[in-house]
């Protein structure tokens, strides 16, 4: 079988070198932009950083999910593109390092609503007090009756410094209830644990896949199949934990049981999009397998379409349940996004993330046309970034966008280019001895 000679070798190719070079350049440019952002507005910097971090995390997690899904359901069509999926899933390792700045410095800015910060009293008393006033005002707006009773109590010990708000405010009973969970030690332990679990699974799947290139033994597939089932359970739990810690706890008062799956849905859309972009671009430049047909593109398009509808379903369900029950602890999150400048963004998000892509990806012609498919993939990536922006930024600000935010986008692009390139260098771009490869290449839509 001359499968290996059927495609260009990635390592050392001009495309690979160019990707590495441009990636490095983008990374440097991006870091410059981020530095400007950091210098101008620290709080904005950290929120924008979190958007970028969650975006890159969702690419890696989604790809890891697709990787496990292929083994779990015994899919054929995705075998020829599996190395690309592995490459994207490999982003998880550098993304893990991106979380270090959040642990080190970002937490106090992002999660100041639930982090007791005695340490900061000396330098930032007035500053934090201001923020808490703002946050508290938001909460009070929707729970006047309760806060009245508490504020009466608070007058008595205004100057004590042992409560949830670093000594400036009365404790929020809901936040107090989450106190065991929302604490720095647990944040560190659980999030680092999540990353370790994801990376361990990633290495397991990838190494077995690479080992198979040597002798084509079925046992490697079997090993991955066995691990893919427990992975799904662990994945559901870890992704939910990450989504709750990084994003839901920005608003510690609020809770939604659908938040984990909401992030999961966006994750799958964006991972399918980045895979579409990479697979089509690589294939049209002579990489991957020459026998691979447009039917595989179609499948990727189908994934984008299906999971985009899934995203709409989940996000609408989350909204509708909260809207219907109309409890102020829950509605407050949506009310920030329902009124004022964010309402425009919300409507735009519905249109941009669901309505337009739905009709644009509905027909088969659209899903087999590579250039339109790539266009829609970029579109959906942008929509996912907007979705994350819409989740994260309203917790601290009215609609705000700064020019230096482009630095984060450039950094993310460079990050994907650079680390994808270095991640797939180590092996063939096609799993040449996978027993399912030939069947996968024959995949055809009916």
């Amino acid at each position: 079988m001359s499968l290996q000679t059927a495609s260009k070798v990635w390592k050392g190719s001009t495309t690979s070198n160019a990707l590495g070079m441009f990636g490095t350049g983008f990374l440097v440019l991006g870091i410059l932009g981020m530095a400007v952002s950091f210098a101008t507005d620290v709080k904005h910097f950290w929120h924008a950083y979190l958007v970028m971090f969650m975006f890159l995390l969702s690419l890696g997690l989604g790809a890891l999910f697709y990787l496990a899904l292929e083994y779990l359901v015994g899919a054929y069509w995705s075998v020829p593109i599996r190395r690309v999926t592995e490459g994207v899933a490999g982003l998880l390792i550098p993304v893990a390092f991106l979380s270090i700045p959040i642990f080190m410095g970002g937490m106090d800015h992002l999660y100041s609503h639930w982090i007791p910060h005695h340490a900061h009293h000396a330098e930032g008393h007035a500053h934090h007090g201001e923020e808490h006033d703002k946050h508290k005002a938001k909460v009070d707006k929707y729970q006047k009756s309760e806060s009245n009773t508490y504020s009466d109590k608070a007058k008595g010990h205004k100057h004590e410094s042992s409560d949830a708000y670093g000594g400036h405010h009365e404790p929020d009973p809901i936040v107090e209830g989450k106190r065991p969970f929302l604490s720095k030690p647990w944040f560190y332990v659980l999030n680092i644990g999540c990353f370790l679990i994801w990376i361990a699974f990633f290495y397991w799947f990838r190494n077995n896949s690479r080992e198979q290139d040597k002798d084509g033994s079925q046992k490697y597939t079997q090993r991955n199949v066995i691990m893919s089932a427990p992975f799904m359970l662990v994945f559901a739990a870890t992704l939910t934990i990450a989504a709750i810690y990084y994003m839901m706890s920005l608003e510690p008062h609020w809770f939604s049981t659908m938040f984990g799956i909401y992030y999961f849905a966006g994750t799958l859309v964006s991972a399918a999009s980045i895979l579409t972009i990479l697979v089509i671009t690589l294939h049209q430049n002579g990489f991957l397998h020459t026998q691979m047909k447009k039917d595989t593109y179609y499948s990727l398009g189908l994934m984008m379409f299906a999971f985009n509808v899934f995203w709409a379903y989940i996000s609408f369900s989350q909204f509708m349940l909260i809207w219907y029950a109309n409890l102020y602890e829950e509605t407050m999150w949506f009310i920030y996004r329902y009124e004022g400048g964010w309402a425009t963004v919300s409507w735009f998000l519905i249109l941009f993330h669901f309505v337009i892509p739905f009709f644009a990806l509905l027909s088969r012609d659209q899903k087999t046309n590579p250039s339109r498919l790539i266009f829609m993939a970029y579109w959906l990536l942008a929509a996912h970034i907007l979705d994350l922006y819409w989740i994260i930024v309203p917790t601290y600000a009215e609609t705000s966008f700064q020019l230096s935010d482009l630095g984060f986008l450039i950094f993310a692009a460079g990050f994907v280019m650079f680390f994808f390139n270095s991640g797939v260098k180590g092996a063939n771009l096609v799993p040449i001895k996978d027993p399912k490869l030939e069947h996968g290449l024959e995949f055809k839509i009916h």
Partner: protein
Amino acid sequence: MSKKVDSVVALFDTPDQIIHAAEKTVEAGYKEFDVHTPYPVHGMDHAMSLPGTKLPYVTLMCGLFGFSFALFFQWYVSGDPLSGFGAKQLFLPYWLERYPFVIGGKPLFSLPAFVPVMFEVTVLLSALGTVAAMIAVFCGLPANGHPLHNTDYMKAVSCNRFGLCIEAKDANFDEAKVREFMLEQGGQSVVTVYEPYRRPPSFFSSLIFLGLLVGVAIGVGTKTYIVYNKVLYSWMFLWLDYTDKVKPQQKSEFFADGRTMQLPVDGTVARGYMPYEYKGNPEGAGQFLVNPADQTSEVLAHGKKLYNIYCTACHGTYGDGDGKVVVREAGKGLKPPSLHSSKLKEWSDGRIYHVISEGQNVMPGYAKQILADERWAVVHYVRALQRAKDAKESDLQ
């Protein structure tokens, strides 16, 4: 009478051959042809250069219709037609009535609540529309016959052979040329299929069928007659049909005047009913009637309950003559006297009882609504009200 040619058919052995033959048929310029295979052969659409199916557009249209219909329907049904459009003059037939129910404190038009229904109807109508269009329009069903049916060709292609069929309605059709073309492609058993004579299908026209119909009609008619006139009137339990009761309009053998229903004897009193002796005689009632009810707390409570039901509307909760009716209809001369006037305080229980039973001026009698014993309880309560209004020092202890 010569037979009309429907098509020329040929059989092939392998899928590759049939795909090749289909490609060649397209090259030769035939448009009206079909391929029959025992199972779906991959690449056949392409080989036959069939245009893409239009079915998805039907699905899309049905889906969009379902979406907009569900939206319109819910908007209409939950809307309030009486708001702002000269409400009461608007007459809608009952089947156009709307149901403006407020549910969960939401606005009548609440899009988030409508979306699930819109989604369901969209999916339902797209699915049903697609299947219906596929069967009725794209497959042309139901069809009760085809010239290819009951041919050896059809038997072969539904078993293990691959068939090519070029139809006579094609513009380039020429029987000899088509047969030659098929042989060139390696077709076997090349056969011309003729249309059947256009005689009506035998079963439906035969006298047997007509006779059968008549037979069924007679059978069903007879059965219906027997069931409704005999079976349902057959007596299984005679004792219910024949009892000794007297039926309406029946002549009595017993009474002299022949009436079965005799008038009651003069002075007959209905059960549980005592005629009122002092009708139109308030003074007599005040003088001779004595309150038979005990002044227990149960009686007072019952009297209070009835007073609150029947009396408060005019006399007011505390008997001040300021009930809701009086307040609302102020200026119309409705002014029930206060129950606390000295005249009423001096009245005996029987006198008050008389007014409750018979009414007075505008006030109607309440004998129909309140039983005699209960009226006495109300009297007790009225007395209690009077006493409470000007409570003495001793009452408070």
